[in-house]
């Protein structure tokens, strides 16, 4: 009796991590897409480590989609891949993305292509054994459900006996990861720097009852304040004064250097105007 078997992926891919650069890049390409295209397709680059696929970079690949056919510009894809590898040889092919919601028939074809590409691009056998099948990322740029949905899928083959029937796209958890500097860079418009000082100010406002106190924030603040290490006042004063003195010395030194620079310049200029008659000794 033929049994419907689901083959789990060779190495368990638990989740995917997305860097915001990729998201920005996808949106940018979507905005610039040619008029006749509904969606944008591209390659994802990154690294795989310990079951987590980290998606670090991406580029768009021109494609054509009609009712029953999908064509992809393979040349372009390969060229861009080579170019990217030249810059960063560690970022390899990990999957592909498309804008729009859900997975369509055309997507399955494209996915097959990427599976083949991944096999071709892994050079030695050991790498091939550790390689993870490509991840498919969908970014809903149309905000169809009234919210931004970014989903990642792994493909699983459904087969009946020897024939493969369909590919099931299973969703895997995705999380948006930002390192410190990226977080600073992703704040759009005027940079909204959140500094501790305003927070202290806002805690004072809470205490004065002007803003409706949020219990969570209040508790968080009091925890933070309580966690300040207790040092004896004498020791603290000494440390504090030392640091302040160091800083003051620094500031003094810097202004001295700046004065020095401007004097040196003026002396140089003066030496020239006096010309060759007098010898001016320029002391540094």
């Amino acid at each position, binding site marked *: 009796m033929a049994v419907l078997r689901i083959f789990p992926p060779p190495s368990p891919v638990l989740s995917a991590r997305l860097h915001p650069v990729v998201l920005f890049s996808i949106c940018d390409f979507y905005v610039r897409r040619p008029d006749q295209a509904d969606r944008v397709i591209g390659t994802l680059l990154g690294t795989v480590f310990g079951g987590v696929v980290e998606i670090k970079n991406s580029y768009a690949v021109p494609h054509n989609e009609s009712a029953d056919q999908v064509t992809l510009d393979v040349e372009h894809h390969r060229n*861009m891949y080579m*170019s990217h590898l030249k810059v960063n040889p560690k970022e390899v092919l990990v999957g592909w993305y498309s804008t729009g919601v859900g997975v369509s028939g055309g997507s399955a074809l494209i996915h097959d292509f990427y599976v083949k590409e991944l096999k071709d691009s892994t050079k030695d056998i050991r790498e091939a054994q550790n390689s993870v099948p490509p991840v498919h990322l969908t970014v809903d740029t149309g905000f169809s459900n009234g919210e*931004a949905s970014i989903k990642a899928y792994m493909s699983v083959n459904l087969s009946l006996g020897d024939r493969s029937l369909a590919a099931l796209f299973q969703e895997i958890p995705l999380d948006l990861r930002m390192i410190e*500097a*990226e977080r600073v860079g*992703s704040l759009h418009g005027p940079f909204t720097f959140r*500094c501790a000082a305003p927070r202290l100010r806002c805690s004072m406002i809470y205490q004065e009852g002007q803003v409706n106190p949020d219990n969570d924030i209040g508790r968080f603040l009091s925890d933070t*304040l309580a966690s300040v290490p207790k040092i004896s006042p004498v020791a603290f004063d000494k440390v504090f004064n030392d640091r302040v003195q160091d800083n003051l010395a620094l500031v003094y030194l810097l202004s001295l250097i700046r004065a020095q620079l401007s004097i040196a310049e003026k002396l140089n200029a003066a030496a020239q105007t006096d010309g060759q*008659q007098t010898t001016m000794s*320029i002391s540094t």
Partner: protein
Amino acid sequence: MAEKLAPDKRHSFTHGGQKVFEWDQTLDEVNIYVDLPANVPKKLFYCKIQSAHIEVGIKGNPPYLNHDLACPVKTDSSFWTLEDEIMHVTLQKRDKGQTWSSPILGQGSLDPYSVDLEQKRLMLQRFQEEEYAYASCQSGYSPSRIQVSTSLRLNSLGPALTQGPSWEARAPIEIFYFDLLALANYSEYLAMVRSFLQAVSSEEVTPPLRVVQMEGLAVLKIIKHCNEFSPALVTGQLLGLDVGSVLEVTNCFPFPTREEDEEIEADGANYQLEMMRCLREVNVDNNTVGWYQSTLLGSFQTVELIETFMNYQENIRRCVCIIYDPSRSSQGALALKALKLTDSFMDLHRNNNFTGEKLREKKLSWVDIFEEIPIKVSNSALVSAFMTELEPESPVAQCDYDRLKLSTAPYVERNLEFLIDCMEDLSAEQNKFQYYYRNLSRQQAQQQAWLQKRRVENMARKAAGEEPLPEEDPSNPIFKPIPEPSRLDSYLITNQISNYCNQINGVAGQNFNRLYMMKALHEN
């Protein structure tokens, strides 16, 4: 556009001292202007245009002009009109683009120099037309963009013309060949187009660059690339648009790290070509507007930077360099800076003259070398929508702890080390100048002494009745002028020092803030 196509002035054909007619030509037509005698009724003037022959005259009289045309014309689109006292004959050239040396066969030909000029002018018109045709079928092109891409095409036509020292500095090459390349006088055409472009660009009033507008995508890409390779220094290319007083940077791509190998040069150029071509296919702005580089603690003012700037400036009208400092960003601020060389400095550098005289003339001091331009980050609506959706909910838990770090000592220490090194360099430079002045004055003294001796000798000789010797002797080594050391290095070092000072100052200020805050917390 029409003004540019109209010819500048008419050529006059005189015969026997009398002006027979005036004429000029454009790309596809030749205009002949015949002065008409005033006392003849208009109805009597006639003009017969045939495919290779023209006849102009007054009815009932022998024709005024009865000649073969130099080249064939299209009779159905040629016509003549009477305008004031002039008969204006418009002949439509059958072979568009062919330069006529004279409208009439065998007579009134222009001298070869003028023919050359005409030819060049027509080629330019054709070039311009094709440019506009190309530009109009792509959406979103602005006139300044056409100019930029024209100069890029120039590079593709003559790689020998751009002798860039490093391939990073060479402007990207576009693979776009026109059939104009089939023209025989290749290099002459290039020189002419270049001079035309220079003339046009200097005619337009370029508004000063006020702000650099970067897209979030470009910022993130730069940050990612620089952080990945930190502490090694990396560079990349900026792509975007030059719109009036705003320079938009819409995308960028990194350069692979270059090893000291000659073969990599060609690879690098290929890489650039590939990237530009592929990016164009997906509709990314394909204009280079500058480059970015990462720096270590702000030590980027070097001669190489200036060289790169000059290379870029030759090819692109406006370019900017974005400097990113990964170490400062780990302190919690976004250390992104846009730099440009000031125009006065660029003029000076072109003449390669950095003596004190010239600098004082232009009132240029070390602050005037680089000009910092404010950066504004903008995002498309789609990206903003995504960001608002995805921004984490509780802002409190997500604060930047880096800014509260109390141990800034390592960062400040390194800055101070660099500062001390720079001071040593500066003092070395000062010593050089001191040495130069001392030598100069010594030479002066020697010259005076020699002159005295000569004068005494001359007196003696005059007394003896001999010829006096000349008072100058260029072959004498004490008259050799001593070259003045260039001030560029000392200016750059001074810039560096001031940069470090500013940075340390900033950190010191922040330190004060933190210390006092700790004190306040403690008292609570």
